[in-house]
């Protein structure tokens, strides 16, 4: 707030800060807590006593723990890694690499960082930890139960990497197609004041309100038997749609279209129509005007909308669980499967570790795009 007259009394500021702190705790607690659970043995993870879950006595008794020294070393390494990648590396690249070969500079930087990380975490770190521990007495002894075995089970034994790849394919597909189709439609709807455009928007809104399970259950028989009913059109090569990632991408894009075109339409409405009309006066067609004038200024809105498409594709359960088979299953149905099969408590903690793993990319995504989300929304991607 610019004006001093608008400044607030201290009591109000404190109350506001207090509530904000409370909210942040409420927002972060469940995720933090399942992260803690995921590094404990099953007995500790589901213990009724909160302290047992945090300190993990049973995990420690099984010989798996972490000392205060390790924690400090860990925090130091993570902080160092962050500084090196986010601050030092970009500066080094821009100052040392020739401007023409910037990408080469980045490749070298990434390679160096990667090798550095391996050397540090697998050679220097354990060496430091092993050699320093005896000197530090209680600080060097394992004090808190900590085990990575559940992550190992998920990623190595359960082949979760395969699910990760499938999620990546589906999500990238949904975001790209959804945005390309949606940007065009959003622009068309924003620039056409016709009643037809209005009704398209209203019908899209009603489509958005539809319960998904109604639609999705209808797809299954059609998708499974598609080789038979497509045969008259496509002949021998008629594909079975069931189990094909691109079929799922198409479904998710369609389900996501109503929201996408609404968001992008309001965003384009905030870009003055004079801008592209001027281009048209200069002899551009609508498409040329769109490409030359609109595309350069539309990115904040597209990134914001893209994030929502990303969340939809990445988090979807209903469509992916029904239309993909186990070979190309994405992460969410895979995790739900881990819970719903006849599980043991160990399986449950493994699933918790998978749940934490699946949240990590979302973390990074929001960290990277956070500023763009807010600026995109501020620029008017949503206007009712």
């Amino acid at each position, binding site marked *: 707030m610019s004006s001093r007259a*608008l400044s607030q009394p201290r009591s109000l*500021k404190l109350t506001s800060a207090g509530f*904000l702190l409370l909210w942040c705790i409420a927002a972060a607690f469940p995720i933090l807590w399942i992260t803690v659970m995921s590094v404990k043995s099953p007995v500790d993870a589901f213990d009724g006593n909160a302290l047992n879950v945090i300190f993990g006595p049973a995990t420690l008794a099984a010989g798996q723990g972490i000392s205060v020294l390790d924690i400090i070393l860990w925090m130091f390494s993570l902080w160092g890694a962050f500084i090196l990648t986010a601050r030092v590396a970009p500066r080094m690249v821009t100052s040392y690499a020739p401007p023409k070969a910037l990408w080469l500079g980045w490749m070298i930087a990434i390679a160096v960082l990667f090798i550095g990380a391996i050397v540090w975490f697998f050679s220097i770190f354990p060496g430091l930890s092993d050699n320093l521990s005896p000197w530090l007495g209680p600080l060097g002894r394992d004090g808190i139960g900590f085990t990575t075995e559940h992550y190992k089970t998920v990623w190595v034994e359960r082949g979760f990497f395969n699910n990760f790849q499938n999620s990546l394919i589906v999500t990238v597909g949904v975001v790209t197609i959804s945005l390309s189709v949606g940007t065009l439609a959003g622009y*068309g709807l924003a620039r056409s004041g016709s009643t037809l455009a209005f009704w398209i928007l209203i019908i899209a809104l009603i489509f958005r309100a539809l319960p998904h399970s*109604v639609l999705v*259950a209808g797809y299954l028989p059609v998708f499974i038997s598609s080789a038979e009913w497509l045969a008259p059109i496509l002949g021998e090569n008629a594909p079975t749609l069931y189990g094909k990632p691109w079929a799922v991408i198409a479904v998710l894009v369609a389900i996501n279209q109503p929201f996408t075109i609404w968001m992008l339409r309001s965003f384009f409405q905030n870009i003055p129509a004079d801008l592209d009309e001027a281009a048209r006066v200069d002899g551009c067609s609508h498409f040329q005007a769109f490409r030359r004038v609109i595309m350069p200024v539309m990115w904040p809105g597209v990134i914001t909308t893209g994030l929502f498409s990303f969340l939809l594709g990445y988090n979807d359960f209903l469509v992916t669980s029904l239309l993909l088979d186990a070979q190309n299953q994405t992460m969410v149905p895979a995790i739900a499967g881990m819970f719903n099969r006849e599980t043991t408590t160990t399986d449950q903690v493994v699933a918790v570790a998978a749940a934490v793993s699946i949240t990590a990319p979302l973390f990074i995504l929001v960290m990277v795009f956070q500023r763009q989300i807010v600026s995109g929304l*501020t620029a008017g991607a*949503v206007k009712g």
Partner: protein
Amino acid sequence: MNFRTFAAFVGPSIVMMLLFIAFPLISVFTQSFYITQPIYEVVEVETCTPGFLTQTCVTEENSVPILDEHGEIVTKTEFVGLQSYRNVLELDRVWTAFREGSWTAFQTIDFWKALRFTLTFTLITLPLNLGVGLGIALMINNAAKSIRGPVIFISLLPFIITPVIGALSINWLFRGDGILTAIMEWYSGRDIALFAQAWTIEILMMLYRVWHVAPFAGIVLYAGLQTVNQDSLESALIDGASRWQRMRYVIIPHLMPLITFISMIHLMDSYRVFEEIVGFSSQGHVISLQWLTYDFLVPDQAGNRSISRASASAMLTMVGIVILLIAPLRRTWRDHKGSN
């Protein structure tokens, strides 16, 4: 913009929506008036199944569907008019319950039980979502510039977390002696079972939903706060408006379009509440309309599914959402007329 250009821009999107939303929807609509069923014949069958040590064989009369010469099940499709709607609505039972004046009896009829919960859920979480969202927006706006980044990041966590995972983590936190229940028990000194009765589950589900969606409202409104006209705020101040009055007469009107937008999205999303029912396994106590449709649709272990009733219940759900959306839609219509 002439029609051809317009069609070229909008075409791909329309085709996608027609293929994957409109056609299934039309087929759901027609299916709600028809019943398709296999034709059964009763035959005597001897079935032998393994026991623990020896086989057990039973001979009994079974209903077996008739197969045609291609080995496909012969089915017949029959127009039944509104029969499926009647089967979902169970109006005779409603009438009986009404005559007896028994709310409990009324609330044991699936559709009405689901409708009651869906509406309560939608209408209670709507103001909560807006309130909490606005609160978050104002608090972030109040915070020092330097901490806004991290605070926005943390605030967005509940929104981005995978819904299935979110519901599961709530389960771990509250179910049985889950950690938060344990803390509440320790604090109150009483035995607390949150999943043992309907009202506690309902409160949990609503809190979870608000926790999950309020960050979205918060961020949208925070973005809106960035564009509040400082001049009108200051002139309001000069006119002697109190903090509350500035809020009421300057800020809220400025945010109004956003509030409508959030309300509309929220109405649509909470009206089709489903993940909470599955995640909290609340079927024994409360169910929602989409869950009811889903339950009709999912085949039982022997492969029977009630497609016609599912279609009817889906159509009834749609009628509800259209009614809820009439108010915001009329506003859009007025805007549209106004802008032409």
